[in-house]
């Protein structure tokens, strides 16, 4: 049994406000996003029968089902693993529920409101006394530790990180909704920005927003009946090499973003490609979760989209990374760094826009569109979307 082509994303919504400035609470943000995604799909909110999410949050499936007045709740699941690592896995869980007939119309969502949950970038509560006495208190620190070794030991050049950031800013100049719109960034501006946690400059770090994102997953059959452009799920994978990122910095391979093959010979990335029957070189456009630029580069390496070590420089040029002409266009809305950040789920919406042909930085012909979820978390995930032609 394979997931390939059995389900599709038919409706999306991406609502964001400056951090701490949402006019309503997180629950209302999530409900707004679900209603908007339903309208986008052309379905009634009453048709929803399942909910998936990740990274915690108080707005559970049963709560939202009651608010929406759904007829019956058939699926409700939260992805374990912390942070944005489970973002694509939430879509995968929705697809798995629909593909196996356990639910018919599942919404994958994430909402954030800093008035309720504080700043994710200073999420100190996540770290225990193996970390805090050493001043390692934020996601930036643990990602910086791995990134510094990727740069200094593995030999991945700084330019790989910098060009990922510059490409995001270049894309943001065409996206009026992006935080970086009208604020172009060049190499000198990047280099001059202060270090936050070295090796991360300010511009290597993601933004934070209030907002909510929702994506509606239905069967491929129903997607065709709705008669709108759908993004078919070609593959979805979650996991990590055993013990990755969960042993107080004692795991191998240390500079992987978590998608690499384990000792069993498979990993999140290789399982994704096998399931989708797509090779890395065949991917048309990539949205890669950049909590920080370095882990995003590691994610591209793990997925076979970029070679490891010094050779990364050849692929990670600004030209290659920029739509529409680049060979590896990434983060075409501006991504978490230059567009907005609702725990990374906005990237999934952009991956759908590319399949629909509605991105502000549309690639010429996007038949395969990859969304890579949060890297360097104890559980990571990615999902590959395809057009009708790929089925």
């Amino acid at each position: 049994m394979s997931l390939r082509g059995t389900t599709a994303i038919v409706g999306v919504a991406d609502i964001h406000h400056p951090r701490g400035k949402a006019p309503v609470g997180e629950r209302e943000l999530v409900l707004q996003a679900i209603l908007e995604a339903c309208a986008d799909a052309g379905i009634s909110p009453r048709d929803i029968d399942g909910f998936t999410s990740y990274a915690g949050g108080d707005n559970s499936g049963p709560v939202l089902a009651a608010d929406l007045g759904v007829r019956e709740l058939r699926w409700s699941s939260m992805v374990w693993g912390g942070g944005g690592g489970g973002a694509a896995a939430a879509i995968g869980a929705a697809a798995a529920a629909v593909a196996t007939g356990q639910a018919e119309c599942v919404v994958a969502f994430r909402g954030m409101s800093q008035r309720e949950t504080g700043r994710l970038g200073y999420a100190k509560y996540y770290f225990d006394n193996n970390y805090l006495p050493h001043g390692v208190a934020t996601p930036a620190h643990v990602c910086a530790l791995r990134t510094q070794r990727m740069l200094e030991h593995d030999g991945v050049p700084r330019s790989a990180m910098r060009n990922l950031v510059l490409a995001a800013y270049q894309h943001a100049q065409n996206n009026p909704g992006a935080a970086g719109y009208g604020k172009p960034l060049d190499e000198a501006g990047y280099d001059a920005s202060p270090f936050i946690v070295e090796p991360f400059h300010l511009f290597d770090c993601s933004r934070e927003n209030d907002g909510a994102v929702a994506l509606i997953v239905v069967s491929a059959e129903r997607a065709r009946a709705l008669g709108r452009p759908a993004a078919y799920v070609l593959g979805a994978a979650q996991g990590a090499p055993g013990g990755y990122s969960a042993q107080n910095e004692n795991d191998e391979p240390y500079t992987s973003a978590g998608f690499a093959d384990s000792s069993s010979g498979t990993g999140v990335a290789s399982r994704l490609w096998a399931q989708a029957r797509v090779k890395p070189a065949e991917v048309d456009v990539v949205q890669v979760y950049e909590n920080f630029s370095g882990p995003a580069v590691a994610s591209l390496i793990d997925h076979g989209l970029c070679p490891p070590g010094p050779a990364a420089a050849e692929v990670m040029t600004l030209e290659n990374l920029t739509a529409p002409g680049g060979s590896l266009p990434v983060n075409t809305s501006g991504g978490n760094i230059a567009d907005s950040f609702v725990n990374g789920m906005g990237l999934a919406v952009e991956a759908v826009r590319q399949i629909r042909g509605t991105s502000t930085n549309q690639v010429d012909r996007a038949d395969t569109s990859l969304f890579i979820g949060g890297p360097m978390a104890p559980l990571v995930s990615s999902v590959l979307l395809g057009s009708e032609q790929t089925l």
Partner: protein
Amino acid sequence: MTAATTEILPTGPAPDDGDRPFWEGLREDRLLLPQCGACGQRRALGRAMCPGCWSFRTEWSPVTPAGTVHTWVRSARAFMSELDVPVPYVTVLVQLDDVPVRLLGILLGEDPRPAIGDRVTGVIQQPVNAEWPVLRWRFAGEGER
């Protein structure tokens, strides 16, 4: 180095007390790390059982606090107001010489500039605003200050 804060620096055993011997070792100026009581396999702090043979028996034995820098970061901001070191500060992840275990710690010294592979020696310090001592590092060959 003086504490710039009266806030308490988080230190000490985990809520389940599973790593209490490590912290009590620091109070006796020793680095004690866990080892499987059945098969002898070393493991990182924070794991409830031996991942090699699934025994829950744990022994704690002394390890020489010396090793090489596996990676490092320099924090340019005061992410923790309770931290008793000035900003910027450097945190190193140290690959121990004697056992296949890595440990974090702040690298002491005046604006230290580490490189991966540098040799470092552990220093057990008692911050004035912490309940328990902490393990920190200095470049090998640099004297106690």
